[in-house]
Each structure stands twice: as structure tokens, then as C-alpha cells.
């Protein structure tokens, strides 16, 4: 229930809106471009960052697409067998003899992994 006081306050009328505002506001409102599509609104906060990210992905894709295929031999890198090391040692000795050096240097020792079997089985150990 409204009191007389509230009704009295209600009787106070506000200032009229300035008449010239109508034309100015409506004209300015219509001059604005239409709302951007949702994806543009979504990208709006940092368009340069999004464009940079897209460009980086494009470059990565192009490089990936245009790079030559890796040769199949290179893909299967097989370790040199033991006989290759033996041949190398033999050739080194021949070169040393041909060069006339008295002290033929011994060939570098073979890597143990190349000559030994590659089994990981451990030898049985007896205790006592």
C-alpha cells in the first residue's frame, strides 16, 4: 500500500529528454555497422595472435608436405657387423706395412659389443 508521501513523490515529473538527442542518437545508431558474425566476435580480443598462430601452423604444414621422403636405408640403421671391424683392422695393418713404418701400430681394439654375442642371458652363479 503506497502512502500519501510516496504518491506525492511519484507526482514529481522528470526533466524531458533533450529534443535534439532523438535525431543524433538514432542517426549515430544507424551509422554503426551490423553485428559481426559469432566467429569474428570470438576472435576479436587478439586477432593478431590468432593470425600468427594460424600462419605458424601453415608454415609447419607446408614444410612437412614439401620435405623429401627419407630413404628406406637410412631409416633402418643396422649396426656394423663384426666382420667389418676385422676387415678394417686388416686394412690398417696392410697400410702400416706398406708405409714402411717399423712399428706397426696395433689396430684399435674392437668394441666388445661388436664381437660378443648379444645375449642378455646371465650366466648361472653358484653360491658356495
Amino acid at each position, binding site marked *: 500500500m503506497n502512502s*500519501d*508521501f*510516496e504518491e*506525492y*513523490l*511519484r507526482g*514529481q*515529473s*522528470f*526533466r*524531458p*529528454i533533450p529534443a535534439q*538527442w*532523438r535525431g543524433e*542518437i*538514432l542517426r*549515430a*545508431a*544507424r551509422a*554503426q*555497422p*551490423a*553485428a559481426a558474425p559469432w566467429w569474428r566476435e570470438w576472435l576479436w580480443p587478439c586477432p593478431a595472435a590468432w593470425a600468427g598462430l594460424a600462419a605458424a601452423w601453415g608454415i609447419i604444414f607446408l614444410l612437412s608436405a614439401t620435405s623429401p621422403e627419407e630413404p628406406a636405408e637410412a631409416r633402418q640403421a643396422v649396426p656394423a657387423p663384426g666382420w667389418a671391424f676385422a676387415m678394417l683392422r686388416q686394412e690398417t695393418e696392410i697400410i702400416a706395412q706398406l708405409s714402411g713404418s717399423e712399428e706397426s701400430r696395433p689396430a684399435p681394439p674392437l668394441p666388445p659389443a661388436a664381437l660378443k654375442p648379444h645375449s642378455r642371458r646371465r650366466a648361472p652363479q653358484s653360491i658356495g
Partner: protein
Amino acid sequence: MSSAVNLERLYDEHAQAIFAFVLNLLRHEADTRDVLQELFTKIARDGRLLDGVKDQRGFLLRVAHNQAIDLMRRRATRTRNYEQLAAGKAPIFAATDDPDQQALAGSLAEALGELPPEQRAVVHLKLWERQTFEQIAGALAISPNTAASRYRYAIDKLRVRLRPLYDEIK
């Protein structure tokens, strides 16, 4: 929606009410104009904003209120102090020839300006927009109970502040 036609209709039907509400909140004519401009620009850009809205006045008042609050927050760090402005003598009521009415209008404007903005908004919507507490709650994003209590506090303050002058006039 043909926004060109409806924009004019919307302005003619609601701009005065929005103007009074925002002016009562901000107590600054240029800022009030900015809020109105922003509001109608928003509607012009996207006419679908009003699709399905039954209470256009309530919707526009709510958007205007949000914009006014945003404006107050944005400018709170500036030298302009809205509370001081609100307590000042910004003319918000129409001028009259009756000196008693004019005096009461001036005192009422000052008393309204002394209210916190949230109470002022409730009082305005209740008294001059004749909204229910449910409608006010929807417009200001508060509960109906909060709207009612804010209204009671504000009316009590206004009554205390204006009673001498009101009794004299009556």
C-alpha cells in the same frame, strides 16, 4: 525485424523513461546521453536482441542500468566522483512555476542523490516506473526481497529527509 522502423518506435516509447532513470543514477547529462547512445546502437546493430522480449521497457531499463553501472565503475578512478555529483544539484526534475513544488523537487533531487545508487535505482523503478518488486528484481539482478528491503530503507530516509518540507507544503 526491421530495425530502422522499430528503432524510432522504441525511442519514442521508451527513451524518456530510460533518460530519467539513467540521469537519476548518474546525475550527469553527457554520461546519460552516452548510455542512451550505446543502448540504441546496440539494438541497431543486433535487432534480434529484442526477439521474444515481452516487457521491452523492463528489458531496456535493465540494459541501461547495466551500462550505467559499467560507466560508473570505469570512471570511478577518475577525478569525477559520482557520489558527490549525485549529492549535488544536478537538475533531474522538470521545472515548475510553483516555488513550493520547485523547492520540494530540489530537495527531493538532493535526497535521492544522497541514497546509494542501488537504493536509488529501486526507488526510481518503484515510484516512477511503477514496477513490482519482482520486475525490479529482474531488472537489477537481485531478489525481490532485496528489492523490497532496499525500497523500504530508501523511503524511510527520504521521509525523514523531506518530512519538514512535505508537511509544510501539505
